[in-house]
């Protein structure tokens, strides 16, 4: 048995498994102007997405299960490109959150989203450089329009950021730490 092919197969199986888990916490967010992006189920009833995706008062939020619910805008920070939506939907899986602090250049990351009409597309890459106090994380991933607002996760599926834009051909995400800070600024932290 060729050892190399085994490694290749177990890697792709592992990626599919993480992608399946990530799909459950990723939603499709459509604004009133017909544009759509992605969102991340940060916790029960709370969707985090990009400010450039959440551009109206109420949005159509579609879960991976096909369930649809209105998502009401709770908070928006255009500069940071973050927004929070409230949804009332039955309890489902939520994101495991991990700090982006301490991630090393080269660590593998996965991004999930809904580019074009694709549902739950995955792209993989590596952390481009470690985060130092910046609210943004660069990763060598191929983002496309529609990935915006979706989760960027490490290899266990824990969310380390929200995909936001493409900077000089690299994917740029808002770190989970910056998201938590944003939520607490609007009194949306879990403790509050």
């Amino acid at each position, binding site marked *: 048995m060729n050892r190399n092919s085994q*490694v290749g197969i177990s890697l792709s199986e*592992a990626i599919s498994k993480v992608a399946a888990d990530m799909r459950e916490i990723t939603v499709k967010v459509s604004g009133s102007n017909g544009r759509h992006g992605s969102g991340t189920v940060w916790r029960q009833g709370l969707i985090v997405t990009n400010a450039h995706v959440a551009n109206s008062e109420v949005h159509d939020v579609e879960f991976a299960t096909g369930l649809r619910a209105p998502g009401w805008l709770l908070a928006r920070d255009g500069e940071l490109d973050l927004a929070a939506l409230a949804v009332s939907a039955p309890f489902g899986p939520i994101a495991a959150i991990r700090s982006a602090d301490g991630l090393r*250049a080269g660590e593998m990351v996965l991004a999930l989203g809904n580019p074009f009409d694709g549902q739950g597309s995955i792209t993989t890459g590596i952390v*481009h*450089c470690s985060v130092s106090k910046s609210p943004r994380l660069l990763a*060598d991933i191929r983002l496309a329009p529609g990935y915006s607002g979706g989760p960027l996760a490490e290899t266990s599926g824990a969310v380390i950021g929200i995909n936001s834009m493409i900077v000089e051909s*690299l994917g740029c995400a808002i770190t989970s730490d910056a998201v938590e800070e944003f939520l607490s600024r609007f009194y949306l932290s879990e403790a509050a």
Partner: protein
Amino acid sequence: MPSTLAEFSQQLADTVEKAGRSVVSVLEGGRTGVSGTVWREGIGVAVDHTIQGLDEVTVILPSGQETKASVTGRDPATDIALLRLPTETLAAALADDSTARPGEIVLSVGRRGTEGLAATYGLISAIGGPWRTSSGGRVDRWFRLDLNPFPGFSGGPIINASCEVLGIANSGPGRSAGVIPAGTVNRVVDQLLKHGRTVRGYIGIGVQPVAFPEDAWQKLGISGGRGLLIIAIAPGSAASEAGLMLGDVIAAIDGKTLRTGASLQSILDGENIGESVPLDVVRGGQLLKLAVTVREKPVS
């Protein structure tokens, strides 16, 4: 037990970190700084065009220490510049680039000033034979990479999965990632250390590619339809001593017919200096056999 994916991820990060011990940042290069690779003890390699015209640059060493490094040699033809670095820097482990295979995983590693290491990940898409840069430099192997170039990656190493340097990253055509292979860098570094510059051959002619009419090359018994028309000869040069004249058309070099105007470059590599090269020349409708001895190109 960590999952396969987590293990793979940590191995990638370990590889970047290990390679990064031989990667420096060159602050003056490019728009926002470029990278350099510690090639041998006390010797760094950077991409020449990114630090053009500078005799001294500011580097950030892997230790985080900032220091000045003098540019001790440069070869614009292959786009390589040498930097003198403190001897405590760790030289990179080099790969034998002739054994690389398409499909291998590669990483491009750079250093962004004091911010630290930066990397992108990809594959070798294709490997080709030797080629020449637009300025005539001979590059031993051509690599196409499926890898995102990033600002400041030039001069940093392209490493394989064993953390060996396959070559130096350089921007390729159309925002692609190019590589100066390790073997080529070694050859240029050796020459720069020995002579302080790279030596090029010189025969002292200016040429213009021309096409022979079909009946002419059939009558002369030469197999190719192309030639190089001599439009300038430097006085006292090898060409002038060999008896070449203005208006001569070179039809073959070293027995080989000419496919492109660049064919002349093949006899002008440093290794050919001192060698006598046979030329087939058409003059006044007759085919002549001459020989020219390649000399070292004078420093301009």
